[in-house]
């Protein structure tokens, strides 16, 4: 075995000097959340870096809903799931049809729609939230899951259309022409030629929309208020309303809530990184 030269060791040491702070910076808030989740209340509040008696008791309390704040844990988890999945499905439907129409069918006015979508993409989310809240009230949708679903679809679609349109443009136009020669109708081209080829981008966009909706706090907090209608992040925010919030339970619930997106992200990482970063900034 060849021993590393002094210069190589020096480079490696310098890289570690960057790598270790980066690792700590990234992990400390997440580790702290995990630490609370496995700590009994006394340990959590004593500022220890590892609990004297690590325990899964907090998880038991959450899963058995043994606290006032956790009465509706399962229904809130379910609300989050239903809303995230609906947003994913609806966004995929809307964005794929639009991208197909603009990119493959060259529909008149397609360019204008793309610009409108791009414009929406650039409206800061918190700014749109104010008029959106009032609008949902006018539509009579406040405290109804549809308000959050439709709001998140509105926010997710522009980016989805943008990314899918760019991916569509890369598919060779000869494929469509060949299908037309074989007598395929427009819908058959969409279903049998377009969708299968777009699969990787569709997975990326579907995941993006699901995660966006699952992680959303502001819109959920504005649009839903009834304890049995709210999503998990709103429930977590409500923990803070109490004077003596059960922080160890808050962190445990937060940890459980953060697991699905992390898992989904890692499962689809291959698709997401390429698909999403390509669309964010065309360089």
């Amino acid at each position, binding site marked *: 075995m060849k021993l590393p030269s002094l210069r190589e060791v020096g480079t490696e040491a310098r890289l570690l000097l960057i*790598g270790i702070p*980066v690792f700590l910076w*990234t992990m400390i*808030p*997440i580790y*702290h*959340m995990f630490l609370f989740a496995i700590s009994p209340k006394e340990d959590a*509040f*004593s*500022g220890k870096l590892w609990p004297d008696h690590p325990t899964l008791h907090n998880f038991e309390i959450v899963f058995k809903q043994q606290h006032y704040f956790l009465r509706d844990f399962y229904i809130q988890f379910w609300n989050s799931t239903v809303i995230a999945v609906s947003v994913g499905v609806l966004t995929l439907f809307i964005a794929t*049809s639009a991208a197909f*129409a*603009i990119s493959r*069918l*060259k529909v*008149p*006015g397609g360019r204008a729609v*793309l*610009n*409108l*979508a*791009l414009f*929406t993409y*650039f*409206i*800061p*989310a*918190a*700014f*749109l*939230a*104010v*008029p*959106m809240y*009032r609008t949902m009230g*006018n539509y009579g949708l406040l405290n109804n899951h549809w308000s959050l679903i*439709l*709001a998140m*679809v*509105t926010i997710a*679609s522009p980016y989805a259309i943008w990314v899918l349109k760019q991916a569509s443009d890369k598919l060779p136009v000869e494929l469509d022409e060949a299908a037309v020669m074989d007598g395929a*109708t*427009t819908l058959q081209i969409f279903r049998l030629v377009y969708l299968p080829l777009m699969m990787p981008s569709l997975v990326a966009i579907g995941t993006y929309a699901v995660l966006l909706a699952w*992680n959303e706090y*502001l819109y959920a907090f*504005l649009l839903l208020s009834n304890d049995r209608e709210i999503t998990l992040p709103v429930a977590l925010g409500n923990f*803070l309303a109490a004077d003596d919030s059960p922080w160890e339970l808050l962190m445990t619930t*937060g*940890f459980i*809530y*953060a697991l699905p*997106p*992390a898992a989904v992200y*890692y499962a689809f990482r291959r698709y997401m990184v390429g698909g999403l*970063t*390509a669309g*964010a*900034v*065309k*360089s």
Partner: protein
Amino acid sequence: MAITLSGDQALPGPPLSSRLTTAQAWGIVLLAPYLLVFLAFVVYPVCYGLWLARAPENYVALYHDPIFARAAINTLIFLVIGINIKMMIALFLSGFFAMQRTWIKWLSVIFILPWAVPSIPTILSVRFMLNPEWGVINHLIFSFTGDDGPNWLNDPTVALSMAIGVHIWKSLPFWTLILITGRLAISHDLFEAAEVDGASWWQKFRFITWPSMQTLYVTCTLLSMIWTLGDFNSVYLLTGGGPADLTHVLATLGIRYLRLDQLSLAMASIVCAMPFVLPLVYFMMKRLSR
């Protein structure tokens, strides 16, 4: 062409099929869902909001509200200082993560976590770490120095810096990832040639990396500014706008007015940000739709 009537069937003008191919007709049908969403949840709310904010009294009221002025300044600090620090770190780290090492690859997989996990539990986790009595940071300060640590979120300047820190924590991975893509697109031959010529790392950065990445970097910075204007979580979940409403940014201020049932003030505060946002948006749209 004259309108012809045959039986009770009326044909208005030339048949649609002569103006549109079937494919284009399908195209319109397929665009319709997005257009409906756009009309119902972007156009209508925005017009309605502008209508609500139309009265000049709103702007007079904002002008006299010291919280508004403070929020505007905080937003500027967030954008000008926070974003630039974040993007410079991202540019630096993109070089680090572009290195070919197994352990760096693993680190990059972990590094993405803040972006992938939801804001609320992680920001609340930071909030608790900064708690003056029970937070781990002041516990550590006490055990090392024997003194009580500062009350981190009680001083508006410190609290705002912490909110900027949280914002950087959350969004740094995304921008680093994009800048890595930019770096990897640079031809490797250039660096090898520079290596042969004995260029220092700074010279390589100055004459190869930066010129190739400049456009991407500027685009990312501007896009990040637009998105940061919409970042409600970093400030709201960490400080709630406090102490004494001194750490609000425009994103949280609008929501604060909304919660106080002052919808026209909420809209007016957002309208005030438009002269800054619209040029950014215009510029970004020109860039992206080239």
